[in-house]
């Protein structure tokens, strides 16, 4: 496995984890860490999904602490 394959695999795993956590956060997590997001619309949740995928380690940490 060369360096390029390692980088590509790392990116794939990171984004894959992000997608799983992001989707879960989309449903329940956002309202848990921020009460103002509890009754927010689907549009709002879709809007924060890319950020949740990219920043999933921070999102997960905040969710666990909430």
């Amino acid at each position: 496995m060369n360096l390029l394959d390692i980088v590509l695999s790392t990116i794939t795993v990171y984004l894959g984890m992000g997608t799983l956590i992001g989707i879960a956060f989309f449903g329940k997590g956002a309202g848990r860490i921020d009460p103002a997001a509890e009754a927010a619309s689907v549009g709002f949740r879709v809007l924060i999904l890319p950020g949740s995928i990219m920043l999933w380690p921070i999102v997960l940490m905040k969710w666990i602490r909430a």
Partner: protein
Amino acid sequence: MTNEYRVVQWNAHKKRYDLILISGIVLYLTLFLALGKVLFPPPAEISIEILLIRALGTCAIILLHLILMVGPLARITPKINAILYNRRHLGVTFFIVSALHATIVIAYYGGFGVENPISAVLSGGYRSGSIPFEFLGFLALLIFALMASTSHDFWLANLSPGVWKLMHMGVYIAYTLVIGHVVLGVIASEINIIYLVLVTLGAVTIVSLHLSAGVCEIRRDHRMISVAQDTHWFDVCGVDEIPPDRAKVVQINTDERIAVFKHNDTVSAISNVCAHQNGPLGEGKVIDGCVTCPWHGYQYLPECGQSPPPFTEKIPTYDIRIEGRRVLINPRPNEPGTAVKPAHFDPLPEIPPLEPIDA
């Protein structure tokens, strides 16, 4: 403002702004494509895909320069605040244009998904043997993607303003990468030198504006009121120096700046720093009885520094009184949201118009 998040916080002003922005982009792209076809007729014609890549790329660079110019310009002249107020929409629109540019590049050069785009970019670009300028553009796009996807107030509130601001300062790293992407791209592709000249002019403008804004800020700070520490009340200005429903920003010693607002024959003193993104409240005005931040329209009641219900933002207030027609302030900040009775002053008597003198 924090209450319940909405997808986009549109109002009439922002809708008008967005309409002008989108119309401008459509007009630019149309003109670029039309001129490209007229100026390069067959047999030297440029394919529509290449023209579109260049149109979107140049459009994105113009938008990026506008975004980077707005901040320092607003420090130099408050007339720019109207654009600053909506810079976030400008930023997200810029990202969409940049992403479209990258998507067409990937589709056109990468055989519409035949080649993994990340693999192609990391292994040296789409043209073997040439300078891999695509890699710089890819890195910049990643930073812009992070910024665009965290532009909503939800992220500002949950990442904390400090972290959010730091993350969004990444625009300067991304800008440097974009400059490298364009310069190396021009060298690699031998396209018109005019792109190099324009991007250099743009970079010089951005640096000069930031330096000028810095000089303006330093000059303002030098005008701060220096007084002995054992005094509690400081004479900061005359009532008549403050325009109605506006503020005068003062700084006592090296403390935080204070915005002294005049509204309905009273004056109130609050922190000059907005709780949202540290916007300069003193450059805003009183609208519907609320001090309104010029950056994103966050509002505070001047008498207590709290956002009107149901919003919950709070900023520090300052004790204030009037002597004669002079405004005196205690520079020790009260806890954010502390009510302070506004100081009342008598309005100047209206001077009746002069009678014409008969000859």
